[in-house]
């Protein structure tokens, strides 16, 4: 059981979710309430693999990376529950995505995820992120846990 910890460092994140380099896109979970919420940070440095290509003369974090960072924070809201830790997840839908601020090397993205429901392997919720208190990226997520969905598959 790791729920009692106030934060989850990178080793604990790896223990709870399956994303790995180069697509593990959160550095630390700084707060979490299992089954309800999770807050994480991602520190972007110039050494990130995507900055040379996006863009050489204007390095900034691609939208898909921001979305993935939000999703990885969101899934920690339920993968921090012992029963589900380490399970693989997949996107069902992403709605109402907004990008408010360019994110550049040196920025620390703070991501707050709220889990509205988690039922039969389908998680629904909303996620917002900020840099220095300024709104960055936000969206509403629906994520599935295939291993749980399989328990409810019809007999054919």
């Amino acid at each position, binding site marked *: 059981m790791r729920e009692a910890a106030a934060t989850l460092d990178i080793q604990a994140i790896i223990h709870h979710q399956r994303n790995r380099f180069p697509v593990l896109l959160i550095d630390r979970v700084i707060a979490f309430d299992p089954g309800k919420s999770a807050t994480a940070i991602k520190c972007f440095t110039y050494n990130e693999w995507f900055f040379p290509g996006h863009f050489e003369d204007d390095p900034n974090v691609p939208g898909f990376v921001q979305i993935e960072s939000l999703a990885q924070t969101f899934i920690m809201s339920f993968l921090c529950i012992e029963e589900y830790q380490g399970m693989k997840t997949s996107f069902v839908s992403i709605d109402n995505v907004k990008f408010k601020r360019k994110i550049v090397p040196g920025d620390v993205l703070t991501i707050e995820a709220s889990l509205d429901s988690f*039922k039969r392997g389908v998680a629904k919720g909303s996620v917002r992120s900020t840099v220095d208190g300024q709104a960055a990226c936000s969206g509403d997520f629906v994520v599935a846990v295939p291993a749980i*969905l*399989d328990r*409810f*598959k*019809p*007999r054919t």
Partner: protein
Amino acid sequence: MSSAEKYDAAFIETFLLEPKDLAALKYQEVESWDSVGHMALIAALEEAFAIELDIDDIIEFSSYEAGKAILSKYDVKIEPV
């Protein structure tokens, strides 16, 4: 909206089908009725009829027709429109 109309609407809106496609519809016969689609359908039906299906009934819910019999256990009668 009648129970039958609500029932059909759950399938049509979840799987993006036409009414004519429903009668013989079975799990995995259309791409959208996969394991994720199945949970979406169950959620839509539970919301439409204010019920909560048991796990065994979710697993037995393998076709449009089978679903009608299952819902009858929850006092939801799907009468022909």
